[in-house]
C-alpha cells in the first residue's frame, strides 16, 4: 500500500508540472483545450493525493513500523484517535495534508466557478498547480512520508505525550485549512494580475474563500490556545511563541483585507493595497510553515525539524518575487476610481484600522525574527520574550479595539457633526460610565480599565446598530420584533455577521484584560493539610490535599494528587491533578512523566491546579495553584467570533453588493450579472 502511495506522489508531481505549464499557456494563447487539461490536472492530483493519504493512513492504522514516519510517531498501544491524528503530528504527514487540502480547495474553486471568470481560470489552475507541486516536490525530495527503514522495529516511538490531547486532534487541521485556503485568493490575485482583469470580479470570486480562511485560522488559533492552556500546565494560553506568532500573522493581514476589500467594493479604492494584502497573507502562511518546520528559531512547537526549511525558504522567495513583481508590473492599472474625501469617514476609519493591524503584524514579525536579525547583524543572539510583545501590542490592541467601535458607525465619504453625535452619543456615554464605575471600585490596572471601557463602547455600538435596524424594519414593514431581527440579519449577513464578530473580539479583549488579575502560588502539603487562596473577586478557596494514588489507564501509568475544594465554606468537589507516565506496548516508559492539570472553570475565573511532584517519593505533594480570571471568555469569545464568521459566510442569493457588481466588468461575469 505504501508503494502505491509513493507512486501516487510521483505521478501527482509529474501531472502537477504538466498542469502548471499548460495552464499558463492556456491563459496566454486562450486555448480552451489546454485550459481543460490544466483543470483536469488539478482534479487528477487531488485523486492521487487521496490515494497517497489513504496509503499513509493505512500504514499508520496497521502499525507498519518499517515506514519511518509510522515508527517515529505511533506505537502499538497508542489510542486509535491519536494514531489517526499522528497523520499530521509529524512534518511529512502534515506536508501531505497540505498538498491534499490545496488540491481539494483548488478543485472546489475551479468547479464552483465553471463558466465564470474565463480569463482568470487558467491562471488560477496554474497557480494552484505550482503551489501543489511545491508541496509534493518537498515531500518527494526531502520529506517522503513513505520512506522505509532498513529494519522493522517491534514497536514505534509513540506520540509525544503533549500531543495526546483532544485539542491536538482539531487544532492542527484547522490551522492547515486556514493556511492552505489562502492559496485560493492568492491564485485569483495572481490570475487577475497576469490577465490584467483587475476590476472587482476577482474579489467576488475570492470573498467566500477569504472568509473561510479567516474562519479556519481563527478557530485554529483559539483551539491552539485551549490546547496550550489545558496541556502545557503553565497557566496561560498565549506565550508569543514563534509558532503562535506564525499563525497570528496571516490572521492579522486577512483581517485587514476583510475590512479594506469593502472599500474597494463600495468605492473602488485601495486596489493595490488589497492585492498586496492577499499576496502578503499567502506568503505569511508559507512563512508560518517555514518557521515551524525549519527550527530556525527554537520553539516548543518545532517537534520535528529537517531540511524542508530550505525548500520553504526558496519557495517563499520565489512566491514573493512573483507576487510583488506582478503587482509592480500592473501598478499603473490599479488606480483608484474615486478618492478619499475626509479623514473623518468610514474609508479613513478602515484605513486607520488597516494601519494598526499591519503595524501589529510588522511588530510581531520583527520581534519574532529579532533573535536571528540580531545574530546576523551583531553576532549576538538575544531573547525576545512575552514582556516585549506585551509592551507594544497591548497599546496597539486597545487602539484597534477603539477603531472596532468607530469604523462601522461613521458615515461613508464624509461624516457630519450630526452623524457623529447621533452615532456615538450612547457608546461614548457607556464608555465613560464603565470607566468611572471601575475607577470607583478601585480597579488598579489602567490598561484593564481602558480595555473594559472600550469594550463597553464597542458593545453599545453593536447593540445600537441591531436596535436601530430591527426598529426600522418593525416600523417600515410592520414585522414583529423577532421576525424583524431574523430578517435584518438574514438579509444583511455580511454586515451583521461582522458585528457579531466584533462582539467576539470584545469578549476576547475582556478575557485578555483579566490576565492582569491572575494570581499564582506554590505550596507543599502533606495529606490532610490545607491552604487558603484568595480570589481577585474577594472570596477564598480552601484546598485540602487528600493524598496521592497510582493506577494504570490505557497506554499510561497515572499518579494522581487529589484536593478537596471549598469556596467560602461551600464544598465544591474534589480536583485531581496528574502525572502521566506513558508506556510503550512492552510496558516500558516512553518519556518523562507528563503533567495533566485540574481545572475548575466558570464565567468569572478558573481554578487551575498543577501537581508539581511528590516530595522524596512520599504523598507529600507540591502544587502550583493559579487563579485565572475570565479565561472562559476566551473560549466563548472564540465561539461568538466563529459564529459571526459563519453568518457572514452563509450563502446569500444577493451575491455582491450592487456597487461592487457595477465595478466588475460585464464580459466574463455573466453569472454574477444574472444573479
Amino acid at each position, binding site marked *: 500500500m505504501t508503494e502505491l502511495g509513493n507512486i501516487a506522489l510521483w505521478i501527482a508531481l509529474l501531472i502537477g508540472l504538466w498542469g502548471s505549464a499548460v495552464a499558463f499557456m492556456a491563459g496566454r494563447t486562450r486555448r480552451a483545450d489546454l485550459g481543460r487539461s490544466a483543470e483536469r490536472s488539478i482534479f487528477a492530483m487531488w485523486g492521487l493525493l487521496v490515494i497517497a493519504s489513504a496509503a499513509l493512513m493505512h500504514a499508520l492504522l496497521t502499525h507498519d513500523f518499517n515506514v519511518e514516519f509510522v515508527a517515529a510517531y505511533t506505537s502499538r498501544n497508542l*489510542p486509535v484517535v491519536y494514531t489517526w491524528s499522528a497523520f499530521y503530528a509529524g512534518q511529512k504527514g502534515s506536508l501531505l495534508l497540505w498538498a491534499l487540502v490545496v488540491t481539494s480547495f483548488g478543485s472546489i474553486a475551479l468547479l464552483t466557478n465553471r463558466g465564470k471568470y474565463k480569463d482568470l481560470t487558467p491562471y488560477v489552475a496554474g497557480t494552484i498547480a505550482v503551489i501543489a507541486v511545491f508541496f509534493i516536490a518537498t515531500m518527494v525530495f526531502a520529506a517522503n512520508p513513505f520512506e522505509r527503514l532498513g529494519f522493522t522495529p517491534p514497536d514505534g516511538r509513540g506520540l509525544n505525550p503533549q500531543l495526546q490531547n*483532544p485539542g491536538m486532534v482539531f487544532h492542527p487541521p484547522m490551522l492547515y485549512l486556514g493556511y492552505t485556503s489562502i492559496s485560493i485568493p492568492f491564485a485569483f490575485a495572481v490570475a487577475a494580475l497576469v490577465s490584467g482583469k483587475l476590476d472587482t470580479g476577482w474579489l467576488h470570486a475570492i470573498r467566500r474563500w477569504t472568509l473561510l480562511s479567516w474562519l479556519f485560522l481563527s478557530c485554529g488559533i483559539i483551539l491552539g490556545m485551549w490546547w496550550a492552556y489545558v496541556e502545557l500546565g503553565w497557566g496561560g494560553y498565549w*506565550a508569543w511563541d514563534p509558532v503562535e506568532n506564525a499563525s497570528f500573522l496571516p490572521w492579522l493581514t486577512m483581517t485587514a483585507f476583510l475590512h479594506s476589500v469593502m472599500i474597494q467594493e463600495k468605492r473602488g479604492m485601495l486596489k493595490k493595497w488589497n492585492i498586496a494584502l492577499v499576496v502578503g497573507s499567502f506568503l505569511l502562511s508559507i512563512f508560518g510553515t517555514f518557521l515551524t518546520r525549519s527550527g530556525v528559531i527554537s520553539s516548543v512547537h518545532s517537534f520535528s525539524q529537517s531540511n524542508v526549511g530550505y525548500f520553504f525558504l526558496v519557495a517563499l522567495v520565489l512566491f514573493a518575487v512573483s507576487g510583488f513583481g506582478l503587482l509592480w508590473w500592473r501598478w499603473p492599472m490599479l488606480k483608484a476610481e474615486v478618492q478619499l474625501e475626509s479623514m473623518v469617514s468610514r474609508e479613513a476609519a478602515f484605513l486607520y484600522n488597516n494601519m494598526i493591524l499591519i503595524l501589529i503584524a510588522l511588530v510581531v514579525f520583527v520581534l519574532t525574527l*529579532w533573535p536571528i536579525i540580531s545574530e546576523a547583524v551583531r553576532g549576538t543572539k538575544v531573547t525576545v520574550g512575552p514582556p516585549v510583545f506585551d509592551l507594544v501590542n497591548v497599546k496597539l490592541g486597545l487602539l484597534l479595539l477603539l477603531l472596532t467601535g468607530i469604523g462601522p458607525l461613521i458615515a461613508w465619504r464624509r461624516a457630519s457633526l450630526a452623524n457623529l453625535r447621533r452615532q456615538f452619543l450612547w457608546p461614548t456615554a457607556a464608555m465613560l460610565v464603565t470607566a468611572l464605575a471601575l475607577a470607583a471600585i478601585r480597579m488598579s490596572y489602567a490598561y484593564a480599565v481602558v480595555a473594559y471601557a472600550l469594550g463597553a463602547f464597542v458593545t453599545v455600538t453593536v447593540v445600537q446598530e441591531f436596535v436601530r435596524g430591527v426598529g426600522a424594519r418593525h416600523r417600515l414593514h410592520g414585522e414583529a420584533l423577532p421576525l424583524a431581527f431574523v430578517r435584518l440579519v438574514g438579509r444583511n449577513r455580511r454586515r451583521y455577521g461582522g458585528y457579531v464578530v466584533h462582539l467576539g473580539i470584545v469578549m476576547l479583549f475582556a478575557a485578555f484584560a483579566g490576565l492582569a488579575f491572575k494570581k499564582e502560588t506554590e505550596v507543599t502539603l502533606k495529606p490532610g493539610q490545607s491552604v487558603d487562596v484568595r480570589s481577585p473577586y474577594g472570596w477564598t478557596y480552601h484546598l485540602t490535599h487528600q493524598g496521592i494514588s*497510582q493506577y494504570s489507564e490505557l497506554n499510561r*501509568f497515572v499518579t494522581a494528587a487529589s484536593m478537596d475544594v471549598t469556596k467560602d465554606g461551600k464544598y465544591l468537589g474534589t480536583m*485531581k491533578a496528574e*502525572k502521566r507516565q506513558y508506556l510503550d506496548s512492552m510496558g516500558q516508559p516512553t518519556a518523562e512523566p507528563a503533567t495533566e492539570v485540574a481545572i475548575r472553570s466558570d464565567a468569572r475565573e478558573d481554578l487551575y491546579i498543577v501537581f508539581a511532584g511528590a516530595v522524596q517519593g512520599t*504523598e507529600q505533594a507540591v502544587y502550583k495553584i493559579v487563579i485565572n480570571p475570565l479565561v472562559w471568555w476566551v473560549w466563548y469569545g472564540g465561539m461568538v467570533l466563529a459564529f459571526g464568521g459563519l453568518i457572514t459566510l452563509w450563502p446569500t442569493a444577493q451575491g455582491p453588493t450592487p456597487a461592487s457588481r457595477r465595478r466588475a466588468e460585464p464580459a466574463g461575469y455573466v453569472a454574477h450579472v444574472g444573479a
Partner: protein
Amino acid sequence: MWRTSAPSLLALALAASGLAAQAPTAQDSVLSRQLKARPADSLGRLAVPEAAGRAVRPVTPRDNAALVVALERKIRCTCGCNQDVYTCRTTDFTCTTSPAMHQLVLARLDSGMTEAQVLDAFQKQYGEMVLMSPPKRGFNLVIYVLPIVGLGVGLGLVVGVVKRWATASPPAPPEDAAAPEAGTATPEEIEQLKRALEKFEA
C-alpha cells in the same frame, strides 16, 4: 463546570467503543507490576515514586517571594524551553536547569546583590540571550522604537494621502447632510422608502 482530564473522558469513550481494545494496555506494564508488588505503605511512601516525576523538595516562602519571582521572570531558562526561569521551574518538572538557576538567583540575592546586579551577573555568565527582554541600548533600541516610528509613519501616510486626495477631488456634500434627522420623514417618504427597500430585497 469541572474538568480534571479531558483525555480521561476520551479514554473512557474509546474504551466503551472498543477502539482501544486492540492495543496492549498499561495493566501489564513494569510499573503496574511494581504497584502490585509494593503498594503504598502507611508511612505515605509511593509504590512507584519514579512515575510521579523527578523528586521535588518542599517549597519555602522564599521560593515564591515577590522579588524572586519578578527577577526570575526576567531571566530565560537555558534548557531551550523558551520560557523564563520562574515559569519553567513551576511548569516543566522534568527540567533540572531552571531549579539550578533558581538556586543561583537565591544565592546571589543572599550575597547582597541587588536585582540589577543579579541580572548583570547572569548576562555576564550566559550573554544577552539570558534576558527575556533585550537591553534597551544600541541595536536593540530598534525594536523598542519601531512601534512608535511605525505608528508615526503610518499616521503620516494616511493623513498625507487623505489630504492630497481631498485637495485633488471636488468637494462633495456629506453623505448624510441631505438626510433628515431620524423620525422627521413624512408618511409619503416612509412609503417611498418602504417600496424601494422591498424592491431591493426582492
